[in-house]
């Protein structure tokens, strides 16, 4: 089930990216997205990944991956050296998400950022009616062991980009297998019904 959902998000990301481009996948995990992009869209992929086992997995698949920490090691990538930089569901785990985001915008001509949406209705209910920090499929950890330091909602990131003058090209909301385009006019409702928000910015 989880795998299927992951694939849905990756599919949406893949749809956002044109064929034959150069893409850097930050926090590329075991390389599933890189494989998808490489095989289906002939995209030249590179990955950055912290976890040793994941790095090995990528290397076994023949995917170029650099072991390193996105928080501290993005300086190694030159300005505009990639057409797209992808950051899937990790923005909220950084100490300084703004700094990381700025770096991604420096490295890529465009950036795809996906976030688990803290504004999803189930998350809100959990906090509002039960008074507990939400644990859902998209946010599986409890408050004391979550890697997430800066949770935000789709609306938050939307407003953040506005405020910081970051150009939003497209926002896609994902709920199970349904996707929908999010814009200013439907932001409130989509913020309530999307589990994941995928932003194309830059």
């Amino acid at each position: 089930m989880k795998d299927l959902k992951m694939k849905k998000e990756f599919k949406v990301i893949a749809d956002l990216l044109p064929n034959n481009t150069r893409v850097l996948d930050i926090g590329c995990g075991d390389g599933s997205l890189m494989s998808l992009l490489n095989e289906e869209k002939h995209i030249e992929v590179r990955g950055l990944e912290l976890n040793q086992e994941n790095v090995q997995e990528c290397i076994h698949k023949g995917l170029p991956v650099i072991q390193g920490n996105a928080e501290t090691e993005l300086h190694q990538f030159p300005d505009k050296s990639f057409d797209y930089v992808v950051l899937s569901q990790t923005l909220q785990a950084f100490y300084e998400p703004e700094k990381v985001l700025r770096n991604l915008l420096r490295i890529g001509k465009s950036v795809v950022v996906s976030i688990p949406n803290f504004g999803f209705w189930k998350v809100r209910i959990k906090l509002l009616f039960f008074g507990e920090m939400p644990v859902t499929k998209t946010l599986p950890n409890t408050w004391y062991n979550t890697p997430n330091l800066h949770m935000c909602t789709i609306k938050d990131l939307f407003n953040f980009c506005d405020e910081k003058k970051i150009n939003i090209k497209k926002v896609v909301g994902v709920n199970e297998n349904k996707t929908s385009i999010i814009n200013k006019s439907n932001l409130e409702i989509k913020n309530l019904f999307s589990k994941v928000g995928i932003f194309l910015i830059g």
Partner: protein
Amino acid sequence: MPSLAGLFFWMNIKLENIKKLDVAKPLKLDCGKTIRNFPIAYETYGKLSDNKDNAILVFHALTGDQFVTGSNPITNKEGWWVTAVGPGKAIDTNKYFVICANVIGGCMGSLGPRNINPDTNRPYGLDFPVITIKDMVRAQESLLEYLGIKKLLCATGGSMGGMQLLQFCATFPDKAFAAIPIACSSSHSAQNIALNELARQAIMADPVWDNGQYVLKNVQPKNGLAVARMVGHISYLSEKGMQEKFGRKLQEKADYEFSFNADFQVESYLRHQGYAFVERFDANSVLYITRAMDYFDLSKQFKGGLVEAFRNQKTKFLIISFSSDWLYTTKDNKDIVIALNASGADVSYSEIITDKGHDSFLLNEPQFLKTLKGFIDSMYERFKNEKRI
């Protein structure tokens, strides 16, 4: 003049039975001198496929030689990289054709300071030209030509072998489909040079060394050479690894002897390593090879620095470092990754977490060997496909 046949009896080395290629093409060295008709000693393992798509070139480190795996016919010990290369190993000789050449300046059959200088009819000694890493690499090109290999599946090497590999890729950007430089650096640091200088001074301080003329007297500056090797061995281990291996343990005794004998296990270890080394290695070769390492600075060779050195690279790189290696640190290795990234090359990087220091690349380090195997096998599939198309 002593008889030439007796010259090398101290090593009890029979170099006549090893594979050698006589390189006819003159090679102009970085120092300006030219060497002609020189021997390159080499060894191969496995079988070259009909498509010639399975060749892996291994560059050896400072005190290595061409005998990568199996039994070394000279020392009768295991090859220096038997942990990684051999049938069923990470670099599987049932599948791949592995080539390794002795570097020039060395003492295992390739042209070195022990060879006879045709101008004087005596061993070169210090008349041997000072060589560089680039000279070593260029000297090996003829071997690939001789073996009929236009493009290697992969080239790899650790430590000085990694430096040779970086040089190889910079000099011949399209000769290897993939490259794995391990625990190396694109230039020698002050500390690296200092340690090498310590090794050289130890040799030179031995009166037997006699300005490199010891060869004529059929002797070897054993004490100096052994100390030089001890320096090396200290730098190959991490502080933690050394503490765990030896601590303050005493060598087969209950208490201090109140003498300068090897009371501690670590002393005994160093002495053993040092004196075992003099049986198989030439002191002048250590001088020449360490000098080549010190002169190595890849960015100095290119106007635009290291990034320029890797411009237009088609080779797919995997850089590997070891967390406790203080000789060629993770940072040294990452600098190579950064330059490769900046030049747009295809590069992967992995840092293996271990306490075993620089030596890790020679040891049975499962994560390292797994990474090595995964990369080579996946590259082989891609290279085969590319060749087919």
